[in-house]
């Protein structure tokens, strides 16, 4: 009798790595959990052990929260480091970044399967590499024109702009170290940190990731230059220079005016003040005083007053909610096909799947 689970199929090391990283485990920690050596785990992940023992795969499945079948077969679309942009603190540990990329790969599997039964908006992101301030401003204006948003008014739903351009927004990051994450590839995704309670900061994060998708395709990000460029893009995209400049002017600095602008432009007071400074409408002294005041008020750390209404990302929830209604595929079947456990499916998508055990199979309806 063979000791491997599927003797005719090769164990896929990349899948083990994705599952391990998604659980935030190191190779040593996983080895410890399944009573194996770290060297064995490394061999499995590198594909040098194509037929691991049956019980080892079962142990992987139990510890990592997947069905044993998950570890077989190639992965169509892996989120590689060079394709991903992450808005994080410099101290963010590598294991957390790997976890987020693995999460992206898993959500990518879900979306790929959903694409086989549903028409998603076509990916439609303009490419405009830019490094100088003038080029970034122009790139943001080009994007607004490309998506027919004009360059005169505020955007009421910035999330929808990206979702209509085929980017799936997922509010699933929970660690406060990473504000946002994006990936431009066959499946374009923006992850947002749902621990951030400020809607205006969410808007800015979406604009920032949009900047990476537009300007930094194929370019490694995470440097001060690329992050500053993405910040400038977000400012310019949310608050185009000419229209914003006209409305920003005030005889003397006035917080009421700043908050009136916040209500209109759906951006944080912090972003508005910074934009005013960047456009030369505020002096360095005024900007520093304003920043100090915001810091003193606790707005920079605890959030600002008068936040815009929260806008839930819609694309993924629309797709998942149509399962079992407009399409035959159900969420339970999707979970089973992908070989996720219900808990893992919930962690990946934020949507609950009924556990097969909880299904009431012995209920018979009354005859009429």
């Amino acid at each position: 009798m063979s000791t491997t689970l599927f003797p005719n199929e090769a164990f896929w090391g990349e899948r083990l790595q994705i599952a391990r990283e998604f659980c935030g485990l190191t190779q040593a920690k996983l080895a410890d959990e399944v009573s194996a050596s770290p060297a064995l785990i490394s061999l499995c992940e590198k594909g040098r052990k194509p037929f691991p023992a049956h019980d080892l795969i079962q142990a992987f499945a139990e510890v990592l929260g997947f069905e044993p079948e998950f570890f077989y077969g190639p992965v169509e679309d892996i989120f590689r480091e060079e394709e991903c942009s992450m808005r994080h603190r410099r101290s963010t540990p590598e294991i957390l970044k790997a976890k987020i990329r693995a999460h992206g790969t898993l959500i990518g599997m879900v979306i790929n399967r959903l694409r086989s039964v549903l028409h998603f908006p076509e990916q439609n992101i303009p490419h405009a590499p830019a490094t100088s301030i003038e080029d970034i401003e122009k790139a943001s204006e080009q994007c607004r024109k490309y998506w027919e948003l004009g360059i005169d008014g505020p955007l009421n739903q910035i999330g929808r702009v990206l979702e209509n351009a085929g980017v799936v927004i997922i509010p699933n990051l929970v660690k406060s170290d990473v504000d946002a994450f994006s990936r431009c590839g066959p499946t374009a995704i923006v992850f947002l940190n749902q621990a951030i309670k400020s809607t205006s900061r969410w808007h800015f994060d979406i604009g920032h990731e949009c900047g990476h998708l537009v300007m930094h395709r194929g370019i490694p990000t995470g440097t001060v230059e690329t992050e500053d460029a993405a910040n400038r893009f977000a400012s310019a995209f949310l608050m185009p220079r000419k229209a914003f400049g006209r409305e920003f002017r005030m005889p003397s600095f006035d917080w009421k005016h700043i908050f009136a602008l916040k209500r209109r432009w759906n951006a944080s007071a912090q972003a508005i003040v910074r934009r005013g400074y960047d456009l030369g409408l505020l002096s360095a002294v005024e900007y520093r005083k304003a920043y100090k005041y915001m810091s003193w008020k606790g707005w920079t750390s605890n959030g600002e007053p008068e936040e815009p209404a929260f806008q839930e990302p819609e694309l993924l929830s629309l797709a998942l909610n149509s399962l079992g209604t407009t399409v035959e595929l159900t969420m339970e079947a999707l979970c089973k096909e992908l070989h996720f456990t219900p808990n893992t499916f919930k962690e990946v998508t934020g949507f609950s799947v009924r556990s097969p055990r909880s299904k009431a199979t012995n209920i018979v309806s009354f005859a009429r």
Partner: protein
Amino acid sequence: MSWKVLQCWGMDNNCWNPFADYPELKEAYLSVVADIIRQARKEALKRYDAAHGDDSWSHGVRAFAWSKFALTEGTKEYPWLTSLDAVPRLRATFAIGGRPFRFYRGIPKEPPSRYLTRTFAEIRQFQFVLKFDGARSIDKVLRIAVETNEQGETTDVTLVEVDKRGRVTNSYLIPLAVAKTNVVLAQAPAVNVRPPMVAPKKSEQQQQKAAEQAKKKNG
């Protein structure tokens, strides 16, 4: 005498432009405040009833209280006008664009001594708020002087700047009413983005059916 001439009668015969020293003050704002006080005093004057014992003292008290109340009500309508008192006080202190002021009835040249002292609200506003708001620190206080004629009708309302020693350093006759302009800032409306759509793909059978139906339609 036109108000332009009056504007120049300052203590040292100077023409004072308060908006240069206090950019948070605006002509339109001062005009609104002056109108509120003028209107409140007019209403109070209507209630003057000598037959029932009203005298200049009772009228003065009522006019002051009504003016104070009208300004407090005004804070609800005008975001730039604020009351600096957490609880209603006799020595009411208000602010225009964060710059505090008090008001009195009397001539601008000689503000009563009781109106020269800084209230706690004024001091707090200077120390905690104006500094953070980046306003220029000026070691002077602002008062609004309301002048009346013998009949008790308001004649002039003047902004007065008083230094530490209680000397009036500048004054500005507030114009009766600044004409309201109908010019508004052109603002493009906000862009409403349509929600994203997902549509089910048709199965092969459905596609075949659709193709057959189309053929039939085309004959």
